[in-house]
């Protein structure tokens, strides 16, 4: 079957090291379709000016393009209004906006609960804020890549956590979190829920109404958009709770020599000139997804990730990390006796782009008693043939490496 989306991604046609490029590192960043690139060129050639500043034609055109994206993003996330959408630089930035904005509320009886599978971006900011405030910081275990919800409930029942921060999809194991169940549990104990949607946004989308989370964060670049773009969705009262930690242009109401009053949300949380072209590009990415049959894309991706796991499982020395109920986006593994760096570096020379390392998830890797792993993360523009090719390349590398590593022992 020919892939109906692949031709939209010009980067995928190139060769590396004289071989066809097979890009399987989408969990790090997805690729950008032609439609997004064309929209950015259109912006820079016809409407580029600063937003919310001038009355002139270009500024109005630019402002209206950015605000259109805000409305589009709200619809894409099933948010009640465009006012619930804050533009940021990415997931990490969104999480920091919430973390810094709420830090004053943390104390010895109001801490933060995360899970062991979190990306460092949804782990370290909370850990550090709690340390600064003397607030409890708890990590819910996730044995074999499955969050232990009973333990989460037990921790919440102690009444010492005011915020729960979980990922929608693990960037290491691809575990899909039962976000609605976690939201219900969090709210039962009077806490608020932040969801890190970096990995989930492309593969699952985000119906914030259904998820009922208080905050949802994602990066544009993991959803077919330029880097340096991101979104913080928040329920109205959840955004109102945030102290604006950055001040500057575009977020104030009245400034006198002695005091300042601030604009409404979301502008209050968006100091300085935003990434205008990036945001407009992200709008085109949302258009791209909305104009295609999302059900078809998602069921194709579900088949692709299941196939990836199945094919990797057939290679005897491969150990897949985690066995979640539902997996999306990524499969990570180790190979007996071979360092993940060697695997990723060698398959790269055969044209396969995969990631090795700690994946910014050291506490998650510790669950599996390893320090690094190889991660394969396909997206809808990848094919089963590419997965087959990767597994063949992996077998070749394992054969070659095993010969040499036994020689040195």
């Amino acid at each position, binding site marked *: 079957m020919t892939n109906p989306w692949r031709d939209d991604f010009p980067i995928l046609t190139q060769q590396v090291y004289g071989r066809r490029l097979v890009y399987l590192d989408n969990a790090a960043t997805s690729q950008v379709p032609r439609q997004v690139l064309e929209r950015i060129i259109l912006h820079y050639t016809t409407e580029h000016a600063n937003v919310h500043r001038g009355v002139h034609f270009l500024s109005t055109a630019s402002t209206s393009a950015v605000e259109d994206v805000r409305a589009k993003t709200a619809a894409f996330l099933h948010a009640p209004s465009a006012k619930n959408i804050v533009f940021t630089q990415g997931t990490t930035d969104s999480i920091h906006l919430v973390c810094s904005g709420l830090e004053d509320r943390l104390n010895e009886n109001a801490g933060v609960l995360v899970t062991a599978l979190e990306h460092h971006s949804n782990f370290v900011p909370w850990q550090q804020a709690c340390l600064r405030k003397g607030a409890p910081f708890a990590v819910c275990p996730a044995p074999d890549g499955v969050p232990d919800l009973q333990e989460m409930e037990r921790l919440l029942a102690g009444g010492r956590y005011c915020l729960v921060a979980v990922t929608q999809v693990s960037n290491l194991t691809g575990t899909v979190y039962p976000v609605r169940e976690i939201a219900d549990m969090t709210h039962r104990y009077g806490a608020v829920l932040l969801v890190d949607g970096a990995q989930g946004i492309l593969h699952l989308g985000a119906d914030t109404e259904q998820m009922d989370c208080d905050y949802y964060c994602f990066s544009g670049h993991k959803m077919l958009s330029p880097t340096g773009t991101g979104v913080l969705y928040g329920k109205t009262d959840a955004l109102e709770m945030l102290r604006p930690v950055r001040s500057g242009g575009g977020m104030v109401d009245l400034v006198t020599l002695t005091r300042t009053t601030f604009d409404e949300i979301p502008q209050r949380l968006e100091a300085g000139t935003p990434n205008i072209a990036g945001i407009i590009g992200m709008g085109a990415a949302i258009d791209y997804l909305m104009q295609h049959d999302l059900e078809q894309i998602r069921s194709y991706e579900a088949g692709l990730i299941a196939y990836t796991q199945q094919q990797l499982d057939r290679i005897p020395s491969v150990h897949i990390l985690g066995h979640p109920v539902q997996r999306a986006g990524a499969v990570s593994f180790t190979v007996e006796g071979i360092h*993940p*760096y060697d695997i990723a570096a*060698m398959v790269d020379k055969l044209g396969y782009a995969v990631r090795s390392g700690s994946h910014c998830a050291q506490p998650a890797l510790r669950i599996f008693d390893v320090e690094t792993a190889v991660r394969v993360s396909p997206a809808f523009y990848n094919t089963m043939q590419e997965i087959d090719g990767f597994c063949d390349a992996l077998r070749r590398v394992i054969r070659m490496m095993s010969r040499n590593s036994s020689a040195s*022992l």
Partner: protein
Amino acid sequence: MLEDRIREIREELNEFEDEFLRYSFLVELSSYVPADQPELMRDENLHRGCQSRVWLRCRLQDGMFYLDATSDTLIIRGVLYVMMQLYNGLPAEEIAQRRIDFLKECGLEEHFSQDRISGLSGIADTIYSYCCSASQTRENN
């Protein structure tokens, strides 16, 4: 002597037109470097990176420089073998004469990612600094 060695290494590595074969060659070279060297693999000799770990120790023997090194990855062990071929047995004074850009001059720079380049260049710098202070000390004595 150092310059001759650099040229030989560059010629040898450039024989491979295919990148996979060049890397396979580095992996083959790794088998000359023992993986398990408990005496060397102590925390004080550890250079930790995001991807791999390297243990190294510089020493002088009769005025000649020697590097003892190993890594938990085969490719880096292969590169360390190349480094040992380059430096081992040379007078520290000769190594101290010129700070070489190891990866670039040996024709390996384009083959490594930026984080690896800074890690491996760091090792070459460590060797250079060690030899500078060693030859300084010998001069003072």
